[in-house]
């Protein structure tokens, strides 16, 4: 079964067409990247798959569940990390993880989710401090922990390392990789080409609401006779 199947997806904001009939598939257990500049439509595509936005036309299924009809079922198996996500500032990190975990299980399952969240966030004693006192890197680690602790079948990560320093970005990538090893499928967006090369098995290049190329990193580099994916992207856009 495909983790995600997007067919001819169109999304309009009023008169503005943000997605112009994009199609792609994500296989179970892989890391798939949507790559493109700001405003290309990456976030819109991820938001549609994350059940946040309505579909103008086309179809989207997640592990066989059709959107928007089965949005409730989809929400049970996905975890979405928005690009500029935040956490409730008056809660401690621990309270925040508790709040989220309660939606996904109770008893032993709840304890296991929390344990995993604590491991991923790796905030030590600071987990008991209010989120308001966290640095940007700490908050992002907490949020990645929140997103991946529930063992989602599909993790939708929008610019997962956005705004992080090299050390924190590397740590987040390590966490994503270990989640994939544990069986999570990852659909991420990024405009960080290095990150894409390091994380993704397959990518789709998106520009102006359209997918202009897709394949593995090596396939795209070969196709556009490029030394790296950034060069391939520039050539594809031209």
């Amino acid at each position, binding site marked *: 079964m495909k983790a995600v199947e997007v067919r001819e997806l169109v999304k309009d*904001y*009023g008169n*503005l067409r*943000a997605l112009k009939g994009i199609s792609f598939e994500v296989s179970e257990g892989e890391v798939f990247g949507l790559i493109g*500049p*700001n*405003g*290309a439509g990456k976030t*819109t595509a991820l*938001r549609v798959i*994350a*059940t*946040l*936005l*309505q579909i103008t036309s086309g179809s989207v299924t997640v592990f066989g569940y059709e959107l928007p009809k089965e949005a*409730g079922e989809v*929400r*049970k198996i*996905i*975890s*979405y*990390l*928005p690009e*500029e*996500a*935040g*956490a*409730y*500032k008056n809660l401690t990190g621990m309270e925040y993880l508790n709040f*989220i975990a309660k*939606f*996904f299980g109770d008893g032993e399952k709840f304890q296991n989710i929390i344990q995993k969240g604590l491991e991923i966030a790796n905030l030590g004693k600071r987990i008991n401090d209010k989120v308001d006192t966290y640095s940007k890197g700490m908050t992002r680690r907490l*949020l990645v922990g*929140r997103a991946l602790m529930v063992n989602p079948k599909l993790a939708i990560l929008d610019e997962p390392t956005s705004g992080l320093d090299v050390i924190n970005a590397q740590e987040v990538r390590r966490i994503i990789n270990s989640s994939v090893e544990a069986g999570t499928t990852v659909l991420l967006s990024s405009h960080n080409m290095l990150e894409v090369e390091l994380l993704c098995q397959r990518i789709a290049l998106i520009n*102006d609401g359209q997918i202009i190329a897709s394949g593995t990193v090596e396939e795209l580099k070969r196709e556009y006779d490029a030394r790296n994916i950034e060069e391939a992207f520039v050539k594809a*856009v031209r």
Partner: protein
Amino acid sequence: MIGNITKKEFKELFTLSTLLPIVVIAIVFGSVGNVIGNVGETLKEKPVIGIVDMDSGDFSDIAMSVLTEGAKVIYDGSDTEGGLEEVRKGNGVALLVIPENFSQNIYANQPGEIEIYWIMKGAGMMDSISSGALEGLIQAVNQEISKELIQQDSSADPSLVMSPTKRTETTFFKGKEIQGLSPSVVGNMLMSQSIVIPIMVMMLIILAGTSVISSMGLEKENKTLETLLTLPVRRSNIVIGKMIGSALVGMILAGIYMIGFSRYMSSFQMRDINLADFGLALGMPDYLLVAVSLFVALLAGLSLCIVLGTFAKSYKSAQTLVFPITALAMISMFTTMFKDFDTIPAILRIIVFAIPFSHPMMAMRALMLDNYALVIGGIAYTAVFTVIMVAVAVRIFNSDRLLTGGVQRRVARGRLAWGFRR
């Protein structure tokens, strides 16, 4: 330099979202003021009365002359029942009955008795203006009789000269016959019993409403909304959870406020009057109805606030969205304080009924007067209003609206920037 900063601050602060709620409040208050009417105009109007003069003596003639000059007399006869009927039909204030031995008693150094049958229309502050004008006329009658007494006999009993008449009063108010109390006393009594609820409702709605609208603003400002909306929980549960949380915060805050306010109000309580003696006391089922009315009004207010909150882009913009709620709560509070529901103009009656917060404000007074239809009707209306508002809120939560308020422009800007980079 200062001018430059001032200009920037002005442009930053003086936005449409800042201006619009204030303009709406100004228009609403202006309209309500026009509808209620001018107090000054009401004061200029002569009170409408009926007179039954059974005495036809010297002093009753004086009283008649003062009353006919200062009031619009629509009944001047000898039948008390018929007179009362005429005054009622003529929307009058009272029927004054001067008994047979009125002048004789005064000559015998006894105060002459005037029987006043008040027709009380409402218990609001402005409802007692007409009866206040008649009170003034009765004072004038006393003065004229005093003058006459002094002219006739300068050695007249000073206590009689000071108070040449006494009165027995009966107030008819919404089917109740209240012996020994004038409309102003009845009005004050009802007001002192029911004023706490409107103020409590207003505070509760404003405090709980502010909480829920701010919560929506904070969700957007702190970028937590998207995460919340992708959790495996029904949208209706999110809406209801937010409402209950805000209601709890509002109740705690309003409770603290009301402890102080109740202490303050208790100093104005009329302890020597027992409401039960006049058939105005509330029983347990009445208090239960007030509580239900209060509860559904709170839910209605919060459901309205959550719909408004979906328009909040940030905590700051959420604060301006509280203004319409505050305005509605204040319209309800002031209208129900100044006028009775039955005595306000029809258009204002519709507005007041349509504002869900009005119902608990009016409930206590209405129940004292056995107006169950208004209270139960209000509860039913408010419940329907709440269900509709929650449905609207859930619909908004299910739509793109929460996330795409300004996306169109942002997407357009992003594309423009990419175009330039290329």
